[in-house]
């Protein structure tokens, strides 16, 4: 199930770079609690116009996992995102 959670998050991409949110280092925490998924994420900058859309997108991706009945996605900018959080892949 945890694999499914990570796979779902890998399916949500940052539209600016085309990289998934885990590769971008934007997922701070992802865990399962029974049939509920909990994710804490950030955006590359606090005023990003995509903030709410990304949050809802992650929520939708989590709810699409078979067996998940509830998803809670919260945003944080503490610590703030920096490029050092990105996975070292070329794109």
């Amino acid at each position, binding site marked *: 199930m945890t694999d499914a959670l990570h796979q779902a998050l890998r*399916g*949500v*991409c940052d*539209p*600016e*770079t*085309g990289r998934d949110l885990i590769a971008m280092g934007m997922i701070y925490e992802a865990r399962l609690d029974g049939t509920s998924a909990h994710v804490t994420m950030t955006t*590359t*900058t*606090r*005023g*990003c*116009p*995509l*903030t*709410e*859309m*990304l949050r*809802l*997108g*992650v*929520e*939708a*991706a989590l709810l*699409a996992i078979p067996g998940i009945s509830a998803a809670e996605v919260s945003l944080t900018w503490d610590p703030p995102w*920096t*490029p*050092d959080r*990105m996975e070292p892949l*070329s794109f």
Partner: protein
Amino acid sequence: MLGKSLSPWTLSWFGAAMIALLLSLLLALATGIGPENLDRPEALAIVHLFALGWLTQVMLGALVQFVPVLAARPLAFSRLALPALLCSCFGTVTLAGGFLSLDGYEIARPFFLLGPVALGLSFAMLAVMILSTLITRQTLRLPEVRMVIVALAGLAGLWLSGAAMVSTLTGSHLAVDISQALPLHMLFGIGGFLTFAACGVSYKLFAMFLLAPEAASWQRRAVFSLAALMAGLMLTGLVMLAGAGSLAPLLIGVCAISLVGCALYLDDVRRLWRARRRPVPELNMSWSRVALGFLALSVLLLPFAVWQGGALARASVFAALVGWLSTLTLAQMIRITAFLTWIQVFAPLIGRRKVPVVQSLTHPRRAGLALTIWSLSAGIGTLSLATGFHTGFRLALCGLLIAATQILCELGAIRCLSHLSPPERPARLPPLILPNFMKPPHSGETQI
């Protein structure tokens, strides 16, 4: 609401600005203006159509869009965006038309006075929106936010000096020495407003596009301090206009500050560039480097412009308006239009299905060709003005018009999603420049 921090009128500002750009270039070609007759009334009308209608409007539209990103909060008084745009368009057209009254067209004289009134209203509404959004305890410590606030002081100086000159030219009792007011007016417009605003916004935008660390550097703080000092000097000059003192010492001070400030700003951008995590910069950033080269050129010419005036002053102004500010704006406008279009069409689909990346909405080679023509023409135009070469200047205008038309076509293609494969396109396209008041093309979900 999704996209609550986005202003729905940004593309309308961009659309109005692009119309003004094309119109000013067409009129410049049609009226036969060249390096020797840039002080003719019709040339002054065209210059204002370019500087106000194109550059100022596109910058104001971009600020309305970008200030919420800087402040990380929704735009305050966002309902003022449309009336501000309408007043700005009306004011630009009436002011530009009003210049024709200097050529004996008496019918245009009332418009000459109406222009500054409408523009003043527009600028006041924008200042209310921008300052109410930007000024918080958290944001005021950011140098880029302070730069934008200083830029608004520059906009106020631009308007005051311009209104004083219009008052003088229309024979009103409020008169100033035009030979002193004109260099100050140009410095307020090019440096005090447009360049300060571009610098403030670029710190954040460049870091975002390059995936570089955003942390403020000592250079950034120094650039802000110098910008504030320069704005202070220019506002002092505005007060001195009312008296009879010479502005020459003050202009020398502004030159010195510009040279140091520009060097520090370029060094800061170089630092961002080197720290970037995006190995291959996108088109908008590659062409921003060319724009920065023109910034350096125009600032290097500035001391000669102030000292000698004439041809070198015209070349410096052209390099700044066309080479620096317009190249930067055109390059970023392509990217921002693609981003806003992506949000309108694809943002509701994040996490629900595979969506294209923002860059796939653009055609980098076509846009790159247009920006190449633009930049080459800007260079030829600058050189022609410095040497008084009429034919070269006319050729440069032709090149600029071709490039601007190509970029307008590219912006239209981005809005129509023409560069995407048919299966990726939605059944219904968003409106070209007006806000999307209908449901989004892909689903019945919330829209911006």
